[in-house]
């Protein structure tokens, strides 16, 4: 599984504080710790409280680039902030994210082509989040068609079927699993699938248990990537075991260690 570390996000107090005080230390430590824990890319989100998101994104990406060349997922809905982040992060970055309505696709897909980036598309459009898997699939199809029409290879599109907290809507985890399975037949090569996992457990009392159980279920359904808390060791262990059970890695008694060593290089 392609693991995108979620922790550099202004929603976290320590990150918001570091941004406010222009103190790169905590950000850089988080970047290194997440990569060490198995992240292959790092999500970068300035958070809701940043005074000037453009300035904050510029500062964040520069601070991270001082310690790593790992791919960054620039996490914003604002095109100007996205462009700035992509410029500074360099080729191979991830646009996180566009929604499914045409006017957004018209902005972000060409942006992905221009910056040699992958684009995450949420299955949300002008009507909001669909109620079921069919609605999610329709939006995903629209995204893939738009990508092909504009010349972006579908393998550089990641569909995020949008998980909601299980204590808010209990049928949604099932709809998302069905969507992940359906998306694989949309095109050849198919788009990738991704999930902002932690949302599934928002507001619950057993966040880590729900996160790792649902991650394993989504992997079994064919999920390619997830934005997760890679510092949650139990979560990563469950992911590695799931990869093994799906025959994506060769067993060895120290398979956890082997997976982590391979992911780091």
């Amino acid at each position, binding site marked *: 599984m392609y693991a995108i570390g979620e922790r550099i996000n202004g929603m976290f107090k320590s990150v918001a504080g570091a941004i406010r005080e222009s103190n790169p230390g905590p950000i850089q430590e988080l970047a290194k710790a997440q990569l060490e824990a198995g992240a292959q890319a790092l999500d970068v989100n300035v958070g809701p409280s940043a005074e000037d998101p453009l300035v904050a994104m510029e500062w964040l990406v520069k601070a991270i680039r001082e310690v790593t060349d790992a791919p960054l997922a620039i996490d914003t809905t604002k095109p100007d902030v996205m462009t700035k982040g992509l410029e500074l992060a360099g080729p191979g970055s991830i646009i996180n994210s566009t929604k499914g309505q045409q006017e957004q696709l018209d902005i972000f897909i060409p942006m992905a082509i221009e910056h040699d980036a992958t684009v995450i598309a949420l299955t949300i459009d002008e009507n909001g989040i669909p109620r079921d898997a069919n609605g999610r699939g329709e939006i995903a199809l629209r995204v893939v068609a738009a990508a092909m029409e504009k010349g972006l290879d579908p393998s550089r599109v990641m569909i995020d079927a949008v998980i909601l907290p299980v204590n808010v809507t209990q049928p949604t985890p099932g709809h998302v699993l069905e969507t992940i399975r359906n998306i694989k037949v949309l095109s050849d090569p198919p788009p990738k699938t991704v999930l902002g996992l932690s949302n599934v457990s928002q507001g619950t009392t057993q966040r880590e248990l729900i996160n790792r159980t649902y991650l394993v279920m989504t992997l079994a359904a064919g999920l390619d990537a997830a934005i997760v808390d890679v510092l949650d060791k139990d979560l990563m262990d469950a992911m590695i075991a799931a990869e093994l059970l799906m025959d994506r*890695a*060769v*067993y*060895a*008694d*120290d398979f956890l*260690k*082997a997976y982590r*060593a*391979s992911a780091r*290089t």
Partner: protein
Amino acid sequence: MAFEMSVEKWASAVNEVTIGATSEEGGTRTSVVTVGGDTTLPFLHFEGKTPHLPAVAMEVLDVVPQNWPAAMQEAFGDVAEDPGAWAGKCVDEFGADMICLRLLGAHPDQADRSPEECAQTVKSVLEAVGVPLIVWGCGQSEKDNEIMPRCSEVAAGENCLLGAATEDNYKTIAAACMADGHKLIAEAPLDINIQKQVNILVSDMGLDLSRIVMFQSTGGLGYGMEYAYSIMERTRLAALSGDRMLSMPMLAVVGSESWKAKEARTPEDTAPEWGAAEERGVVWEATTATCFLHGGTHIFVMWHPRAVGLLRKTFDSLMGEEA
């Protein structure tokens, strides 16, 4: 519509490993051998690179084997008592890229030679030839733990390939390897899971993954060859898919295993309907080697000069213009 070749895009490559050190590199070898670096399945030149020819290591034993096949007696009988001369013949007459010195004489059931005696044998072979050396113990763990550190020491700086670390016995040889600047053979009993585990164990000791060559205790044609082949293939696929713990080049012991087969060693007068004995043995060895070549083997430990010749022809034809 024009034919379009189906090409797989691989994420990774086999590690490149060099055996041997010239005077510039702190050794006394006159040549070195580099294997690996492949970015595709064996010899799919349209898909990726096969940057190096596989290497032939001809095997030299420190004791004359009992029940040696007549064909081997004929080829090496004149030098069989002298490992240095034997090695020299392999290099000068048959163009061996490397010598694989097998210290069978250390085995308590054989001559039970001391670490010092074994080290002297290693020295004599190093002095006799300029090609890189594989130095392999007798296969009995306790005894190998005595002889290999000393053998490693006398060859310090020569960048030899030492054999072999196993799941149950890897610490002594891995430590010697690191101390004296050698490469290491990680051995598994026809088991990809154990192979991966041995690689993890030795790398945990601090030996860099780029200093390991893998060896599945391969059998000859008719004796588990196809199972070995399937493990090799799966190993290469894992390497190309990015499994760092299975990305090392592979070695196969072809000569001794092939000539163990009754089809290879039964004399002509016992089985006249099987045809000329030497021909059978040579073809048995060459066929086994060819199979492992297709499986992705990089280093071949060979016995008979004619089998070596046949294998080299196959190298050349498969490498094509990349040779």
